[in-house]
């Protein structure tokens, strides 16, 4: 009986509140946010701080449509079933205007499909899967983060320039690793038709047998390695590979390995010379980033990680969408988000009308070690626009309606 009474009490409270609560101009605009906070805390704790910073700045500047904004966050447990449930809760009980967030690909895809069903706007923050905007794209879903395909494409020029023939590949065995590998093989083959992929290892996520994998790669005698490992898997692979001499005379490309979340734990063992995508936060001197960095450090007494930028930019995208729409009507919000341009710590981005992917770029560089810490050297910023396939290809992949 406890359950029902409590539920009813809760329901009644909500009903009463919505009757007497301050409707109209004074009530904040609520935006629903869901993410796998307990599943991926290393990325999502800084992400949440980024959100807090953005909310503070937006409200200090007067909010949107004359109202303050409020982010209502929920933990989706890294599980699509739970994610759909909390999304329902955000929409029906919290009465949020629309949804933002999510981290793993399968949760992002499930929420995107849910948004389509409920006909609400969903701005996916972090899921990297290409399917989110292409094969499984829909009118209601937008994606902020530079996708797997884009980040892979950003590494291709360097990879092709080296003219290495024998490539070894290692990736975590799930959507992100699989599509990174597929994109890399396809794109490199186009640039360099004589390339050979001599060995492929797909360890389970979080459970790599690094010694055996490093040995298997070394046995194939590759000239270069493409890896999309991250987190604990990456740290184990780096250590075993170094001890076993796997990386001697071999060029290594690793998606995401320059992100502070994954680079910093490696400390003095950060693998020098690797080509990576990441976030050299201390060296970016653009005005928009300098402002973000100063505000972030003042508020949290800590440096931002990539997650911080993603959280911050997600909220900013949501707010700019509301401002541009001038209303909270779903049709207007979606029309506004399509083609929306806004400033982020990584510069101007646009949510492309053609596939709802933002043109947020990423930093590409090589890993160096200084004062016992890894950092990105020789980095350059690559605009997301140049790393996307042609419009014709996108239209072919994306469902029509």
């Amino acid at each position, binding site marked *: 009986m406890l*359950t*029902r009474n*409590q*539920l*009813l009490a*809760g*329901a009644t409270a*909500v009903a009463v509140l919505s009757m007497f609560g301050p409707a109209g101009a004074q009530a904040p605009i609520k935006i629903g946010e869901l993410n796998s906070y*307990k599943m991926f*805390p290393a990325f999502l*704790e800084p992400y949440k701080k980024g959100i807090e910073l953005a909310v503070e700045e937006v409200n200090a500047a007067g909010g949107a449509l004359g109202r303050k904004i409020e982010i209502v966050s929920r*933990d989706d447990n*890294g*599980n*699509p*079933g739970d994610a*759909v*449930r909390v999304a329902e*809760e955000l929409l*029906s*009980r919290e009465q949020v205007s629309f949804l933002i967030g999510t981290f793993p690909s*399968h949760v992002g*895809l*499930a929420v*995107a*499909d849910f948004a389509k*069903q409920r006909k609400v706007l969903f701005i996916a923050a972090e899921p990297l899967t290409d*399917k989110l905007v292409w094969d499984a794209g829909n009118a209601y879903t937008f994606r902020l983060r530079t996708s797997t395909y884009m980040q892979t494409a950003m590494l291709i020029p360097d990879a092709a320039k080296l003219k290495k023939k024998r490539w070894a590949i290692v990736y975590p*065995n*799930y*959507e992100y690793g699989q599509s990174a590998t597929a994109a890399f093989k396809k794109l490199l083959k186009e640039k360099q038709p004589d390339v050979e992929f001599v*060995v*492929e*290892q*797909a*360890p*389970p996520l*979080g*459970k790599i*047998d690094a*010694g*055996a994998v490093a*040995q*298997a790669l*070394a*046995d*194939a005698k590759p000239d270069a390695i493409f890896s999309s490992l991250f*987190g*604990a898997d990456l*740290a*184990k692979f780096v*250590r075993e590979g170094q*001890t*076993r*001499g796997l990386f001697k005379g071999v060029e290594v490309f690793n998606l995401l390995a320059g992100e502070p*979340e994954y680079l*910093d*734990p*490696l*400390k003095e063992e950060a693998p020098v010379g690797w080509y990576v995508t990441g976030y050299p936060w201390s060296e970016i001197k653009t005005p928009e980033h300098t402002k973000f960095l100063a505000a972030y450090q003042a508020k949290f007494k800590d440096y931002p990680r990539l997650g911080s930028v993603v959280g911050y930019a997600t909220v900013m995208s949501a707010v700019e969408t509301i401002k541009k729409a001038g209303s909270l009507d779903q049709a207007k919000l979606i029309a506004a988000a399509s083609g929306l341009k806004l400033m982020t710590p990584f510069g101007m981005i646009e949510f492309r009308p053609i596939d709802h992917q933002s043109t947020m770029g990423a930093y590409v560089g090589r890993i160096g070690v200084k004062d016992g810490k890894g950092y990105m050297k020789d980095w350059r910023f690559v605009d997301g626009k140049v790393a996307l396939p042609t419009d014709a290809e996108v239209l072919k992949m994306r469902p029509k309606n």
Partner: protein
Amino acid sequence: MTFASIIIQLLNGLAAAASLFLVSAGLSLIFGVTRIVNFAHGSLYMLGLYGAYTLIQALGRTPLGFWSAVVLAALLVGLAGVLIEVLVLRRIYRAPELFQLLATFAVVLVIKDIALFVWGAEDLVGPRAPGLSMAVEILGKRIPAYDLLLIAIGPVVLGVMWLLLTRTRWGALVRAATQDREMVGALGVDQAKLFTSVFFVGSVLAGLGGALQIPREPANLDLDLAVIADAFVITVVGGLGSIGGAFLAAIIIGVAKAFCIGIGTVTWFGFEISFSKLTLVVEFLIMAVVLVARPYGLLGKPQALQRLAADPAPPLTAPSWKIALVWVVLLLAVPLVADRYVTILLTDIVCFALFAVSLHFIMGPAGMVSFGHAAYFGLGAYAAGLLFKSAGLPMEAALLLAPLCAGAFAVVYGWFCVRLSGVYLAMLTLAFAQISWSVVFQWDSLTGGSNGVFGIWPSAWLADKTTYYYLALACCGTGIALLWRVLFSPFGFVLRAGRDSPLRAEAIGIDLRGFQWAAFVLVGALAGLAGSVYAFSKGSISPSTISIGQSTDGLIMVLLGGVETLTGPVAGAAIYTWLRDVVARHTDFWRAVMGGVILLIVLLFPQGLVGGLKALFLRWKEQRA
């Protein structure tokens, strides 16, 4: 593979086996004596890594600092184990079988959040072992010197354990308690002290296994669940309570994994087979094969007939029609008075209630514990999704056909499972669940791989959440009613006879296995129905519906409500789902709070919530009389 790579991969496998062996040996020891399925053993391993990391920083990166940190970390983890035993488990030894699993599950949640709070979210990469950071060249290939040390540590620990168990009085007591702990108690041995000491030694082994990994593995928050499944598999493959068996099993599994990686991708008859991807599931494949061939593991002996620690389960009482009717009316009325979200949450609860009741049916009255019940839930969900989306059936047809598919899998899996008993049976169900999971996870073209299947929404007339809730209520309510009805039919009585006294049941001519097999198929189909209803309520399904997590959730629901009661699982499903929803909304450290609440329930109501309330009610009635 060349000869040199074969040798190197063999060494890699042996090195990986060392830590696994230590953890599994501890688990095996604890299970043998206390009969506790210690879910928190992986958490102790994780604490070993974190502890070693912190201690090495404090004691310095010298050989002395490193090794004293490792030993100290292991001992501290041992004390943590003692704390768990004294504060929690000691109070519930007489609770129904497996109830302690619930307590250790709560401990896992609490430890995870404590670790997050103390050590933060970032992975902590420990230092290399001082003096052993280099590689040794063998046959022209390099292997870390530390790995060679690990390979040596395994047999050393095995030897020490063997001496402890065979040459000391403590060892004799442990062996005696493993065989017959009632008798040990009757002979005047202080069981409490014995159990505490066993917990200490088991936990030290887990902590040592973790601490020794620090040069090979960053301390991170996913280690607990990553290692616990492996440890269970090794313990069972080796044979419960057999340390030597655990050693053998650890080596077999470690080496098998290394060779899967070493072989990589091969082409046979035009088919490309990636052995590297097989590492996802190889330990469960090995376990399935071993258990089918040797029902007590490699070196295990048939379990001695256990005298029950707890009283045998009381007979179930059939629910009264009046109360059931009141509940049905109440549930039907909810959407009229409550907000939309209550209906949505209740739809979840209704699905999980049928899932929990079907699990209860098999583990309670039928006496066959299933650790892999999510297999049928998830396969039902996938069958529904695929029949609808790929086969193009109408949603209603898919919904109703899916349980048959889940049942068909239960026909196959059940046939093997009913040949075993006890924990071996439970682990075989887990093996089948994990094999199903890995196939679903890998078969991109059919199941969508790790992304799952999406776009499976109900037909227009069911799209409204209230209507769908009524549909869920009708489907799952019917399923629950059917299962409960069956329990009081001759079929149900046969199952209970089989649980309480298999010998006598067979002596009066009952084909027990046949009935148990039928029970498997029945609950498989109904769990599939729950999954199918769940899938259409979410619009998408992913492999997590077949995962260990889903199976564990089911166990938690049943145990929380009370495995010896009829309505307990329904109450457990409702409370667990509702708690998770509420707690997660109000605190960042929701896992620790959940764990705390479950621990509280465990300590206050050792028969589960419904069981406890029933006991209170009976006592109250007696006092009045």
